[in-house]
């Protein structure tokens, strides 16, 4: 089970999807992460408490793609979240 360390807020502006992340240190600037539709679905699935395997299946199902491709996308985005210190 993956847990987000912080509440990550998401805002759409026209065709952009922007995740707002808290600053690394108090007083620093807020960080942003540009998302696409797939990464937004993965983020929402993490918030819903799904495991990595379940997320891959979920992504494969809603985008009607091969589970291996879904796994690649999911792993890459999860790594991105870890690199940004958002995922425990």
């Amino acid at each position, binding site marked *: 089970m993956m847990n987000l360390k912080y509440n990550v*807020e998401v*805002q*759409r*502006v*026209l065709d*952009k999807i*922007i995740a*707002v992340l*808290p*600053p690394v240190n108090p007083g620093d*600037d*807020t960080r*942003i992460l540009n998302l696409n539709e797939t990464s937004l679905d993965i983020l929402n699935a993490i918030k819903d408490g799904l495991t990595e395997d379940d997320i891959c299946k979920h992504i494969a199902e809603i985008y009607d793609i091969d589970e291996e491709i879904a796994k690649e996308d999911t792993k890459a985005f999860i790594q991105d979240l870890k690199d940004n210190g958002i995922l425990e």
Partner: protein
Amino acid sequence: MQIIHSQVAIIDKVIGKQKCQNDENFRLLSYVKKLVVKDGILLYNVLTRCMVLLDKNEYVSILNIPLLKELWFVVPSDFQDKDFCNQLKKLAKLLLNNKQVRDSYVIFTTTDCNAHCFYCYERGRKRIHMSQKVAEDTANYIIKKSAGRNVYISWFGGEPLYNINAIDTISRLLNSAGIEFFSRTASNGYLFDDDVVNRCVKLWHLDAVQISLDGSEEIYNKTKAYIYKDVNPFEIVLNNIGKLLNAGVGVSIRLNVSSRNQLDLEKLVDIIHEKFANNEKLTIYSHALFESTGYKGDDTEKSKEKNFISRNKIRAKIEKYGYSKKIGIPNNLCLNHCMADNDSSYSINTTGNLGKCYLYSDNEFCGSIYDENINQKVINRFKERVPEILECEKCCYYPDCISLKMCGDEKTCDKFWREERLYKIKSQMLGTYNLFLNKQQINEDENDEFEVQC
């Protein structure tokens, strides 16, 4: 085409340039305002804060200028202006939320007053001084919450200086704790004698005072109905304004315009000019008495119109003498209306209760300086907005328009209100443009000097 004022950083950093297909139909964004000046045509995007100067030829082909598309002045005909505006403001608020700190306070030192204006919205409320203990506890609360950051204080009342001890106590404790702060006050100006003006500068770090005047001598003295006998309050207050200005404190004179004093206020502007002749620290503005004062006597369509025409005449005189407040285009999006919907601002009343608006000094509290808990329901109530109306859809002022339900008369959007908005936007455009011209002038002067030296 010249860029006179850049768009807000959030658009450059997060959203970027608009990318359009050339085969689309285009129009101006609803929030673009035009103003003809000597050198061409100013176009101001009220949402993005970008302002450009076009020459007449460019203006003719305005929809075909690529840079105007990139800068969100020109958009496809099916563009959703209001969605773009709301999405952008929500994003800006999210980016700001993580940085918000509690650092701005309106402190009611007393609800008592040495004047008895007929229009006072605090009439009928209990008249209470902040005690020595509450003043000390208020200072300690601010020190604890400031966490080393700068603090902004507005002394409020009643007449705030009627309990000068509270201001002294709070200021002294903040100074002792090494808190960086500056303060302002809304006062009738009667109590600013030499000793008080000295404390304003040295102890209170007062940088500006707003003083309301209701007319020249006779009307002023009658309207204010001070408690003092055998004195001329008008003369005393004007002299005190002089003392504040001489001490380097900014004074903003608010002329309360009602049906009773419209002509007299024009005369008053002459008197002020004669006495203070273009003091740079002095600004004057007019205010319709039916706005935010709780006074309903003039609140009819006809009297509003009369009041608006009078205010325009008074404003013209203020401008002629050069006492208008110098305003320019803001560098941020408009995200809140006032302290009521701003999470970094609180009021502290005479007994230590926390509030969200100076109009509510004896009810609608959201907490206390003696308690860490904040009542979020009250906070949210103050943030509730007046529902949008049909006119909002294409209104040029929409990006800067926030109307709160708790806000009394200001929630009415009528032609007078829109005229006020137009005046403000034009002033912002001209203010920024004049600054741009002055900078250009300075640069040209510097170049001349360089050539001479060579």
